[in-house]
């Protein structure tokens, strides 16, 4: 049966080659498309996490829903003490976020001013690495401010200029200070760079009356894949009124947006597959139609209808398996290569900065499981495409088939 199927494939080489290349192209395209889609999503998410959000955050249980001074974390030192020695935690640091007014003679802008521990923060986020001009914050800084590049542009300030901070202290009394711009950062996250500024938390606490308080504690873990188990473990160590949230929860809207984007990606790819499906089916139908006489002869020679069906399935299986396998290998190689050496599209980050694109690099994501299921889909598609042509041949009795013109 196998050798007969192979002989048929070689004999009908026109149909075989067409089906083979269509199937190979589909598998290759599917694997590469999904690799690029997943790669860009992963890259956007990773950038956001690495730049600021961190792997997980610890906060007062109502803070996430209602971030205000009435829901900030009190007793930060006590919470931090409980984090000591937990396996998997790389670093942690408290942040105090405050929506305040930054003002110069030129303009006033509502901004997120955050008190950070400069040293600890550099182990968690990329704020220090994002330095664009001047210097990063230091432990001894008091009225020094580290400001986003786009915010600096809006306020028209440069290194050494003064910026007035006007906000509310924790008890809702007024807090105000003249800060000196010591550094400008540029992460590439447009919204972030246009609305964020950082000051030394030890001084900020004096200004905001927030000693031993924080909006949340940000934690970096060694292995991001293990974040959920670390979250569960930390939660057991914390009092009831403390919430520990992983990046999946913190970035839920971004994750959802990416899922929606993926669905649209699959829908557009699905339309392509519908076309491929019908092309393979039509080719298969034409081919089988021309072979009805031959198939009738095989039946007359003693082959059962099931044997003929098995023969046709075997031909499809040989073609589909070989083409999908080659497509998967080629697609997998491309996914792997471009994960290591991403394509660079000059100016892309600048053009799409509002969408959270921070790099000109377009990486892929090499994932063996994804490649396997992508290949399986194309394989199934090949088998589905042959069902109707086979059903058509089964309508004929051996005598009818042999008389078929």
């Amino acid at each position, binding site marked *: 049966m196998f050798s007969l199927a192979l002989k048929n494939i070689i004999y009908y080489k026109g149909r075989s080659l067409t089906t083979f290349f269509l199937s190979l192209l589909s598998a290759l395209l599917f694997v590469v498309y999904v690799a690029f889609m997943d790669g860009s999503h992963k890259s956007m998410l990773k950038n956001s996490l690495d730049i600021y959000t961190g792997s997980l955050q610890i906060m007062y249980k109502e803070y996430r829903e209602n971030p205000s001074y*009435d*829901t900030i974390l009190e007793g930060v030192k006590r919470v931090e003490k409980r984090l000591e020695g937990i396996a998997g935690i790389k670093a942690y640091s408290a942040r105090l976020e405050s*929506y305040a007014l930054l*003002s110069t003679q030129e303009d*006033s802008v509502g901004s997120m001013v955050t008190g950070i521990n400069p040293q600890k923060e550099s182990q968690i986020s990329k704020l220090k690495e994002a330095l664009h001009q001047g210097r990063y914050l230091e432990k001894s800084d008091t009225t020094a401010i580290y400001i986003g590049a786009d915010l600096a542009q809006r306020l028209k300030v440069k290194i050494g200029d003064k910026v007035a901070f*006007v906000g509310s202290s924790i*008890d809702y*009394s*007024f807090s105000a200070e*003249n800060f000196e711009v010591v550094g400008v950062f540029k992460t590439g996250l447009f919204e972030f760079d246009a609305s964020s500024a950082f000051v030394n938390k030890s001084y900020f606490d004096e200004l905001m009356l927030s000693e031993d308080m924080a909006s949340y504690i940000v934690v970096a873990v060694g292995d991001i894949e293990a974040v959920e188990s670390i979250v569960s473990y930390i939660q057991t160590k914390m009092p009831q009124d403390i919430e520990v949230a992983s990046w999946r929860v913190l970035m839920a809207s971004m994750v959802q947006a990416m899922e929606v984007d993926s669905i649209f990606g699959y829908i557009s790819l699905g339309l392509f597959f519908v076309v491929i499906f019908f092309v393979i089916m039509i080719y298969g139908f034409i081919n089988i139609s021309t072979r009805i006489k031959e198939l009738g002869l095989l039946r007359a020679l003693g082959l059962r209808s099931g044997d003929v069906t098995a023969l046709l399935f075997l031909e499809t299986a040989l073609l589909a398996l070989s083409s999908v396998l080659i497509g998967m290998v080629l697609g997998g190689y491309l996914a792997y290569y471009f994960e290591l050496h991403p394509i660079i599209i000059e100016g892309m980050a600048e053009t799409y900065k509002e969408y959270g694109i921070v790099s000109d690099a377009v990486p892929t994501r090499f994932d063996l499981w994804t490649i396997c299921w992508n290949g399986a889909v194309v394989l199934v598609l090949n088998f589905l495409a042959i069902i109707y042509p086979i059903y058509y041949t089964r309508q004929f009795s051996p005598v009818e088939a042999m008389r078929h013109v």
Partner: protein
Amino acid sequence: MKKLLLTLIFLSTLLFAQTAQTIIKKLEKNLRGTDVYSKIEMQIKTKRHSRSMLIESWGKGKKKNFTKILSPSRDRGITFLNLDKQMWQYIPKIERIVKIPPSMMLQSWMGTDFTNDDMVKQSSLVDDYKAKVLEKRGSIVTLELIPRRDVAVVWGKIVSKIDTKYYTQVEDIFYDDDGKKVRKMSYSKVKKFGSHFVTTIMVIVPFEKSKQGNKTTIKIVDAKFDQGIESSYFSKQALKRYSR
């Protein structure tokens, strides 16, 4: 007969609408006078914090208001100027006059249940809303205030109870654009200052889930009407000048 009935209905609706507008105008005239100086105590309570403030305020007409904080000492000397729906503030510690940008207008004013926007637009009920009488019970009239089409306001609707004996407010309920209650302001203890009646206690309770437990109580300690407040209070120079 039918025509007569329709005319009567139309006329009575018109009269009711006129009555509502007249009530609002009289209310604003009573509250504002030509000009008004007031000394106000504020108590602000949130879930975790409570504090009190003493402020002085000078107002002239609908669009001019100057406010100065007397206590607590940490905030003493901070001044605010509202002019034509714009707001500036002066902070003595940094010696700076800062204009509040539009993006900050919905932020809380000094931790109270007022927003900066409330402070600026507090006296534009006549100009910004169309009033309709909902109910009359003795001297208490309930009005429904719907924003005028061409006006940008925060509230979708205000239902206001007004005591027409003194032309003072009894209760205001503020609704958002979806018709959901946002906050309630209750007024009590009417006192006469000169020829004007003033409710000396005002309590603001927000309905939003995130603000449950919050309460702002305002007590008018003193009020002087039609004293001829100098126009120098309503300029940006005043922010620094009257800060001391």
